[in-house]
């Protein structure tokens, strides 16, 4: 199967699995949301205590382990790191806060679109604008410098951590906090969520699926290979939503969403910009962490820290819209990402 055909196949499978997860209990238009799920897991670990968004999402565990399994089978497991890990942590922090102002990562943005949520269309335009900003710097030589080979245990540790999470979830769930109402209380059965994560992680590793990469490559090289996976998820999820009567076309009254266009646009601009600087969207960071990339593991820690701050300091939006803190952090993020990109493009000293 050619790369593009496999990407389309992967996208179709992912679109269907995503809608199936909502049928079996996940919040509406949230079969997958890397930002929301890392936020929920951060809540389950008491990194924040927002009572409605605390649950250790087995999908995240599955995504990392599915990717690790695929990488090991395909002899692509390659421990590496050291490419500006702290900058990546900070970018990860901002990407998460931007996503929580919109209320979704790029993956959920597609699923929201496929559910008829027109706010996600505004967000998509913002996402494209953010990617455009990243491409501006990439074309001029942006780089976070090289990663270097690391020890096997360094590369495996993030996957091992996921196994520890699984054991804690199964053996001593009382250590964790689970929401009793709100989105955190809505979830598909444990084994189904885990299996869905494993399958998606496995296929996403092999196909190199990336929600930001498709639009980025279109800008950079007029190449639609990666974009085909993005479009396939949308088409499959749209058809699946229409089949199970979950398609509702409107701006208003969409699940876990708000209608403030400016902040949906700017929130996802941050995510698009940050994802290009990181070399991949939040889903891709999870997949890379499974492949042994510890820079991606640092980025995911940045996501978790961003999620904890977003709820501890009231930065995350709600159905009523963006908060004052959320607006401030989005502007701060855009300025900070621009400064980081500027210094990593025009003021860098390359390590050989």
């Amino acid at each position, binding site marked *: 199967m050619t790369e593009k055909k496999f990407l389309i196949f992967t996208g179709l499978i992912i679109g269907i699995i995503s809608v199936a997860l909502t049928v079996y209990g996940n919040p509406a238009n949230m079969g997958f949301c890397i930002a929301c799920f890392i936020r929920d897991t951060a809540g389950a670990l008491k990194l924040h205590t927002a009572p409605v968004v605390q649950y250790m999402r087995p999908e995240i565990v599955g995504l990392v382990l599915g990717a690790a399994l695929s990488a090991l089978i395909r002899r692509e497991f390659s421990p590496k790191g050291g*490419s500006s890990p702290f900058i990546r942590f900070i970018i990860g922090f901002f990407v998460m806060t931007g996503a929580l102002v919109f209320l979704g990562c790029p993956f959920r943005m597609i699923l929201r679109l496929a559910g008829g949520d027109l706010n996600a269309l505004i967000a998509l335009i913002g996402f494209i604008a953010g990617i455009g900003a990243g491409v501006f710097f990439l074309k001029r030589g942006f780089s976070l410098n090289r990663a270097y080979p690391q020890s096997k245990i360094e590369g495996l540790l993030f996957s091992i951590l996921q196994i520890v999470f699984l054991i804690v979830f199964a053996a001593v769930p009382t250590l964790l906090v689970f929401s009793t109402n709100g989105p955190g209380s809505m979830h598909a059965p444990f084994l189904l969520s885990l299996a869905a994560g494993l399958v998606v992680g496995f296929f996403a590793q092999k196909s190199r699926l990336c929600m930001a990469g498709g639009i980025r490559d279109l800008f950079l*090289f007029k190449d639609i290979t990666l974009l085909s996976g993005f479009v396939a998820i949308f088409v499959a999820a749209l058809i699946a939503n229409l089949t199970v009567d979950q398609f509702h076309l409107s701006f208003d009254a969409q699940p876990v969403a708000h209608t403030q266009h400016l902040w949906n646009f700017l929130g996802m601009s941050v995510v698009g910009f940050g994802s290009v600087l990181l070399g*991949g969207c939040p889903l891709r960071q999870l997949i890379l962490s499974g492949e042994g990339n510890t820079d991606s593991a640092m980025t995911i820690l940045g996501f978790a820290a961003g999620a904890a701050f977003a709820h501890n300091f009231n930065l995350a939006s709600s159905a009523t819209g963006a908060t004052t803190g959320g607006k401030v952090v989005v502007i701060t993020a855009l300025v900070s990402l621009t400064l980081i990109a500027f210094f990593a493009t025009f003021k860098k000293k390359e390590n050989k």
Partner: protein
Amino acid sequence: MIEINACGLSCPEPVVMLAKALKEKPTEVIIHVDAPAACENCTRFATNSGYTVEKSTQENKTVLICRKKH
């Protein structure tokens, strides 16, 4: 002949470097990559730009030799 070391660089930097090198239409470009995604992306870009690609992989490192088609 141009030689590029793109090992350890994040997506899509290896392809951006290759694209810059191919702008001059050289007869041969050698690029070193160490990520499967970079290897596939560079191969696709070079092929679409009218080059044949010869690969040799040792452990996690791949050398791509891109030669201009006549």
